[in-house]
């Protein structure tokens, strides 16, 4: 029922966009979020931030859409493609199959897809080296832990999230050899992104078993993990957006994935007529991933830790340290 209402809403919005667009010929990109919602304080919110920055700097508006279920991916893409949107940005690996289908049917519409790789002449694919950013937060966890036990909490069990885990482990082991890892995944279906209660329960269990720091790569479910850290007096590591402010003092750092930059640059490039299809990978060297350091966690990260991190960062950028990857992280599932 709501899907239907939304559809009507989106159709009206589109109708308005179409008529005003035809009159003023304004550039209007479209941003499609993944399940989890625009303000998930994580992945989708980063995309939203990028869109807002574009709007603020250029004064041009963009359209966006939040799907309620996977079945809406393709419908939404088709609807905007049929209207000849100037640029359609689909955020999330879940879109890969839908973008491939729709982009091949509308070869004159530009698509940018984030987190997935689609090899078509009208699709730009942007992926991140999450393993490199996770390596750094893994180092932070290993330097900070007092119990020599650290945890990882993934959302849905997919190769992309395994990539976070891989980098995290490698980074931690780079600092200390004798660490114990505890890992959990909230689930194996997309609903795993929206289950903070279960995530909190798993995080509590990890803390009770001796972990004192947990890195959660679980979208909105990760908020449950941060809540558990706060309730039990331990530390959590946020993901995608900077989540340090969610529970000041209890969030050690956040692994930043600069989806905002990717969205912003894609919109800017398309507006300037410089948009190009193809595959771009954003790692530490490109500023695509990083860890968050701000007033909320400044007390938790010492200058000594910072120096070690900078050293490791330089080594990763120069290729001296190679962070291993997980096969199939950016293909559809």
């Amino acid at each position: 029922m709501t899907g239907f209402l939304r559809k009507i809403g989106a159709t009206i919005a589109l109708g308005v966009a179409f008529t005003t667009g035809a009159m003023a010929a304004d550039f209007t990109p479209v941003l499609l979020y993944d399940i989890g919602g625009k303000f998930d304080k994580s992945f989708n919110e980063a995309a939203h931030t990028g869109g807002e920055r574009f709007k603020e700097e250029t004064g041009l508006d963009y359209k966006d859409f939040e799907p309620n279920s996977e079945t809406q991916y393709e419908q939404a893409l088709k609807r905007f493609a049929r209207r000849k949107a100037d640029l359609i940005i689909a955020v999330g690996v879940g879109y890969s199959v839908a973008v491939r289908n729709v982009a091949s049917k509308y070869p004159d519409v530009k698509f940018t897809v984030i987190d997935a790789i689609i090899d078509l002449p009208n699709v730009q694919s942007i992926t991140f080296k999450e393993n490199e950013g996770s390596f750094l937060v893994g180092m932070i966890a290993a330097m900070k832990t007092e119990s020599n036990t650290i945890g990882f909490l993934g959302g849905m069990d997919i190769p992309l999230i395994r990539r976070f885990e891989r980098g995290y482990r490698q980074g931690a082991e780079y600092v200390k050899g004798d660490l114990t890892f505890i890992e959990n995944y909230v689930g194996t279906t997309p609903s795993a992104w929206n289950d903070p209660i279960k995530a909190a329960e798993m995080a509590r269990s990890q803390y009770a078993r001796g972990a004192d720091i947990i890195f959660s790569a679980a979208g909105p479910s990760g908020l449950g993990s941060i809540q558990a850290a706060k309730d039990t007096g331990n530390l959590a590591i946020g993901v995608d957006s900077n989540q340090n402010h969610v529970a000041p003092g209890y969030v050690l750092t956040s692994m930043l994935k600069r989806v905002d930059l990717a969205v912003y640059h894609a919109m800017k490039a398309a507006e300037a007529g410089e948009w190009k299809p193809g595959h771009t990978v954003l790692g530490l060297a490109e500023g695509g991933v990083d860890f968050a350091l701000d007033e909320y966690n400044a007390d938790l990260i010492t200058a000594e830790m910072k120096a070690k991190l900078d050293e490791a960062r330089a080594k990763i950028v120069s290729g001296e340290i190679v962070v291993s990857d997980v096969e199939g992280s950016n293909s559809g599932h």
Partner: protein
Amino acid sequence: MEFFTDMILLMDSTLRTATPLVLAALAGLVAERSGIVDIGLEGKMLAAAFAAAAAAAVTGSPWMGMLAGVGASVFLALLHGWVSIAQRGNQIVSGMAINIAVAGLAPTLANFWFQKGGQTPLLGDEARFSTITLPFADALADVPVIGALYSELISGHNLITYLAAALIPLVAWMLYKTRFGLRLRAVGENPEAVDTAGISVTLLRYQAMVIAGVLCGLSGSVLSTGLGGGFIRDMSAGKGYLALAAMIFGRWKPVPTLLACLLFGFVDALQGRLQGVALPLIGEIPVQFTMMLPYVLTVVILAGFAGRMDAPKASGTPYEKDH
């Protein structure tokens, strides 16, 4: 000793996980015992979770949150009652309509009021039911076995969990030891007889719906203001349906229903614990398999051990005086 500590941790997790399940299952039990099938538990739970988080965020008081959560749930229960009792509508359709409507309405309202994309703001500690440390818990913690049991397992839950523990005997007492309970059970089995005795079937069923609404409202409130700290869309995550299964598995009786909820809670805690752990002989179990555990167990139990299911006979059929 490590095994003992592990078991305590698992049981502790079980109690937390089972709290919303028990409350919702009791709500379903009271409704069905009066003859109204309540498949809308999921929707009422989600509505209550949203209302509780929203009210707690605005007022800063978990009690106001609980009041709003219970209010929202009772309203939906009465709506379901009105459709099923007064309009003699299909109870499954009405219940599902509530589930679907709430799934869409709650994030929409949250977005409208808080502009956080279908979430409520995260609640601070003062706006949540935080954990309660029972008296002597710290002092007894070092006593072997009993100390650990008391301080780890029994102490340190939120208020609604203790409330749920108190409500189970209360509901059982109400159903089996009071005149109201007797009539309630009768109206679910044979409403004609109750009507012949001069007791209003309509009133009894509405009363049952209010009780169910209150219980389900508590179950939703514990999600967003007790266990969690704020509302996130679809956060009930199928618990309403699981509660319904627990109630059927518990054969519409309070104590077996409680045991079923505890079992579901335990299996859920266990599957989290088994992830990534290498077991002797078997090795590490893939996450997909541990995730299946609660569902496989449900099917096995329902098919193999549950035996004959005696649903209240008039459950699901609207009462019509005239035939």
